């Protein structure tokens, strides 16, 4: 029997030697684009450090319920990081919850959770704390309800370049009391609380005593103290809008603000004195004016409540959903994600009439698409972009366009690009020495028009939204999509957001938000993850593209091997995995990565369509 097999093996060998290409294997798309768990570069390690709905947060006295603990809210979005200058720990982490829900213990609306982390060996640990208000534990609910009034849809935010001050942003512009899920919808008096008696004594100079509708107390930038888990103030003097992101510059006076709306103005606040943001002037950007920053009088409450309308009255420049804002200390420039919207035309036609003007890059895009202007029904903005604002020249330009755009592609078949950037949302820049790096995170608006690859099927034909996050070396001049290095993807259904490096640049904190409930625990909950191992790559000697071997051209190179879960290749291959007995277990098409974590630890054979083979050792 043995001899017979060997003999036949020889025939097979001859057949294989003449393989002109494996016709049964045609192109299909990588399972790497669909995972039930977090997937990051194998050169990095990942830890789950905060699980929504599972980890318990310490609460304050709320709605007559005594202080205690409650399961954390879900929908983790922004991550604030405030370094610990004492060196005892790494620092304090602040997590947004992008929700509007009632909660008896945590408080209505969305909110935040804060905790303190330290590095122990190669691991990140959450350390115990006792706060000034007597609460002790690991995770703490930020008390908004008893201070500034509840917050809602806490999405992005700001980490100041100076001292790590933290603001949380309230997105999803509320327009009526029926659009908030609040137990108390009586009118709200700034500095006092609701007329029905829910006290919120933290007011704001100049606005205390003003009575507004309850929903009008949402949609601000709200500062918190991450060390004590309390809210400090709602920033009424920065206006009321669907804020998403912002940046406080090193001068500790200038603040840039991003608003998630179509259209969105680009806004700036300049404080009178350093480190005091309660007084100062508020401006909106108008690219086609001589004085590009036009002041909106922020001492008038009505101006603040209707901030965007005031912006269009003075002819501000219109953008298509500005999300996160990040400052690059190396170049001194400010970057923002403009996430895009499929058919924005009708969304900003009205504001155009009110006086708003289109950003030049939208006019150029419309013209390239052969449509009259960005207000036309036919105008599309599927992929979004990162924009760059230079404070020196006061010019706002497109920095990195999402895509590749279908209109740019020639009409031939090509592989799904490894770096297809769609709907950038989260944005972070980290300086290491004299270099800086940008982390771009996706939140897909849909799966259409090439935003997700064909073949990532959840149910035969329904494509899976998998959001990716990328690293960009900011030293690269005029970067293109080719320069993006994919760090990883988040589980099915999740948006990746919140990316922020610890001060030492070794660990990236990131959130996996609203994943599919079909993922295994804990990946069915919103998660905060610590991804470590960047120290060798950022500012170091190893080029960052080694984080993703698929971007390095070479012969078939299977690594890591042995592996605990995945192997990656230096190019895309079609392959099948066989067990030791020769049984075909799984077929993969057009992949540069294979996930073996579902297999039991053993030795497997891999065979490519060209007959190349490799033995893969899967360890525990």
């Amino acid at each position, binding site marked *: 029997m043995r001899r017979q097999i060997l003999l036949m093996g020889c025939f097979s060998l001859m057949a294989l030697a003449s393989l002109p290409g494996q016709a049964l294997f045609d192109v299909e798309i990588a399972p790497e684009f669909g995972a039930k768990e977090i997937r990051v570069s194998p050169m990095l390690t990942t830890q789950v450090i905060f699980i929504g709905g599972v980890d318990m947060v310490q609460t304050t006295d709320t709605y007559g319920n005594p202080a205690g603990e409650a399961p954390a809210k879900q929908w983790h979005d922004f991550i604030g990081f405030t370094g610990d200058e004492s060196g005892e720990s790494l620092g304090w982490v602040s997590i947004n919850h992008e929700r509007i829900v009632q909660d008896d213990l945590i408080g209505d609306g969305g909110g935040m959770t804060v905790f303190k982390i330290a590095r122990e060996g190669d691991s990140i640990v959450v350390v115990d704390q006792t706060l000034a208000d007597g609460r002790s534990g690991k995770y703490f609910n930020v008390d908004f309800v008893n201070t500034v009034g509840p917050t809602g849809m806490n999405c992005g935010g700001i980490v100041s370049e100076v001292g790590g001050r933290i603001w949380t942003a309230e997105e999803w512009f509320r327009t009526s009391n029926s659009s908030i899920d609040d137990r108390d919808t009586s009118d709200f008096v700034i500095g006092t609380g609701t007329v029905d008696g829910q006290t919120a004594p933290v007011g704001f100079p100049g606005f205390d005593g003003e009575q507004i509708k309850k929903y009008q107390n949402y949609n601000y930038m709200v500062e918190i103290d991450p060390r004590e888990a309390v809210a400090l103030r709602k920033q009424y003097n920065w206006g009321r809008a669907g804020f998403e992101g912002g940046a406080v510059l090193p001068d500790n006076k200038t603040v840039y603000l991003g608003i998630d709306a179509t259209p969105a103005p680009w806004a700036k606040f300049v404080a009178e004195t350093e480190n005091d943001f309660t007084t100062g002037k508020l401006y909106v950007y108008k690219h086609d004016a001589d004085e590009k920053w036009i002041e909106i009088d922020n001492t008038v409450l009505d101006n603040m409540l209707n901030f965007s309308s005031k912006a269009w009255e003075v002819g501000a420049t219109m953008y298509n959903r500005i999300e996160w804002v990040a400052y690059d200390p190396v170049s001194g420039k400010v970057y923002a994600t403009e996430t895009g919207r499929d058919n924005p035309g009708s969304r900003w036609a009205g504001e155009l009439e009110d006086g708003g003007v289109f950003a030049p890059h939208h006019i150029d895009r419309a013209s390239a698409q052969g449509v009259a202007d960005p207000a036309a029904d036919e105008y599309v903005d599927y992929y979004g972009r990162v924009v760059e604002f230079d404070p020196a020249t006061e010019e706002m330009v497109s920095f990195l366009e999402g895509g590749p755009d279908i209109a740019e592609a020639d009409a031939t078949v090509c592989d799904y690009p490894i770096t297809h950037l769609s709907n950038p949302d989260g944005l972070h820049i980290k300086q290491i020495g004299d270099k800086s790096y940008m982390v771009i995170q996706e939140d897909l*608006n849909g799966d259409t028009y090439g935003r997700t690859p064909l073949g990532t099927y959840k149910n035969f034909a329904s494509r899976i939204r998998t959001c990716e996050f990328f690293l960009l070396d900011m030293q690269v001049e005029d970067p293109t999509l080719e320069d993006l290095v994919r760090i990883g993807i988040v589980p099915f259904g999740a948006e990746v957001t919140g990316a922020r490096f610890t001060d030492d640049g070794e660990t990236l904190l990131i959130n996996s938000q609203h994943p599919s409930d079909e993922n295994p625990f804990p990946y069915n909950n919103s998660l905060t993850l610590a991804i470590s191992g960047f120290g060798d790559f950022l500012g170091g000697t190893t080029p960052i593209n080694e984080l993703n071997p698929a971007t390095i051209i070479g012969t078939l190179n299977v690594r890591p091997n042995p592996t605990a879960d995945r192997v990656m290749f230096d190019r895309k291959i079609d392959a099948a995995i066989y067990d030791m007995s020769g049984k075909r277990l799984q077929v993969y098409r057009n992949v540069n990565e294979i996930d073996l974590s579902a297999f039991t630890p053993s030795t497997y054979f891999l065979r490519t369509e060209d007959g190349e083979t490799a033995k893969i050792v899967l360890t525990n």
Partner: protein
Amino acid sequence: MQKFCFGVLTCVLWIASSHWGIKPIFENSRPELVRAQYFKKFENYLLSVQSFDNALDDSERISQQKLQNDVRDLRLKYKAIEPLLAYFFPSENARYLNGAPLPKLEPNVPELVVIPPGGLQMLDELAYATDFEKVFPDLAEISHKLRVQSEQLGQVQGRYLTFSDRNVLEACRMQLIRAYTLGLTGFDTPGSANGIEETVATLEAVSEILSIYHKLAQRNAKEPYDRAQELIADAQQYLLENDDFDTLDRLHFLKSYLNPSYAALLDFHLKTGIETVFDVQQQLQGVNYAADNLFADDFLSAHFYAGLSIEDYNAAKVALGKMLFFDESLSEGKNQACASCHQPEYGFAEPRAKSSSADGFSTLERNAPTLLNACYSTRYFHDLRALNVQSQMEHVVYNEAEFNTTFERMANALKKKTDYVFAFQKTFPHLTDPISKPTIQQAIASYLISLKALDSPFDRYVRDEIDKLDPSVVRGYNLFMGKAACGTCHFAPIFNGTVPPTFAESESEILGVPTTSDTLSASLDLDLGRYGNGMMAEASEIYKHSFKTPTIRNIELTAPYMHNGVYETLEEVMDFYNKGGGIGLGYDVPYQTLPDAPLNLTKDEISDIIAFMKSLTDRSAINSSSP
């Protein structure tokens, strides 16, 4: 990197290929040929869209008759590309090309934006509008948008459309299900009801795609290939000879053509050695690709919907789930079990219009739905507020008017009962603390999976397990799936709102249900339904009074009917639909999704439909439910 010894590996591979009958095949790539064929047809479609749109721009107003013909031709061109287009571009197809003619919400934007309906179904509806002059501007706008979107899709697929043999065969099988459930029922031809001619066209497209596999089939899949092609040709012939929408015998078509060709294609796929979905992904799907009949009891994967893998499901868990299901001591007042409202003898529903509250005096807001086949759904509760079975349980457990407790309290109580301690230990032997929220939920989910009721007389007849069915049932099914248009919302085979052919989404509808069955004094039930389900992203006008489409299986047992239990009898229910729902009763229901025109069903026809519905009763899960 380690390279394995080449010679030894080839032995291994030889064994592998002989074992599966796989041999390397080096002919011109079939997917390339399929792709070229598809692009040619797409080009025809695109030219048709463009000339259609140009014709509407002409200053001379086109006649309604001419327009109807043009829409018909355009839709037939679309049907030729539908098998691959709808498979590869499901989102683009649903949103822009051939989605239901209803408003939708723009996904993933920080506000609620209603997208007006467009695409080919809308063109079909408007081309037959009685106020044609009035709707013409809308029609022109929809045509223009369709043109723009079709042109863009052409660009996209030029760049991205690459695929494998597996995709092609999956797309063909999926098209058979789509054609039967959405085409022949008239679902996607709301104006013309031209479903039969369109089905002939799309079967032709499937046959032409398959013909590219003719050569491959000669190796060892000739028999199933020939069988599939012959069945598809016969199916087309049958439809051409029986082309009256109202009288077509859809049951005969199902048994003689649809199911046999669906089975033959599976047989063909397996015999070619081309990998199946099971070779390339581990996660379950709604449709079980290995099933060979639309009415097979494993056509849909209950495990997919219940979020429980096949490995995690066993008899011990079902038995434990059953214990919990009937145990009143789990609720805070020790007076409510799952079975209090989901009573087996009433088809796991209950005879009261609205369920009793925990206080014993008041009632809950709505009627308890049946749990038989309930798990074949992606959303739970009449208002669709729960996204999965586990969260459904949480709503009941935490609700003050229902169990009014927590899983922690429940677990603590169970730990004091030796029979439960024993049962949980036996069921979850690897856990040190087996009584917990996840294990309770897993046990109840397992019981829910077991409440499958897909073995009714009707199912058995479709599967050729019995050879006689009352003629009124046959007539009733054909009305249900045709003239009476029931099957365009209560989709086969579960006859609920889980949408074919992927069965990946549960739908809700606005019917305009009244508060009382007394038609003279009744008024619209003001229950907000989906609008008020607590999801910020669904609090839109288009979901006001919208309720989940329930299964009609076992409906004989589950009176009273509708979300509020307003109707005691099926005759009353049928009368409501026959009159055109809430609008037909004279209410103001701005977003009613049920067509408001009377169905004009005769008394005999209604009694046939009821006979069909009663043939869907399967008591086996009920009979085995006694403790």
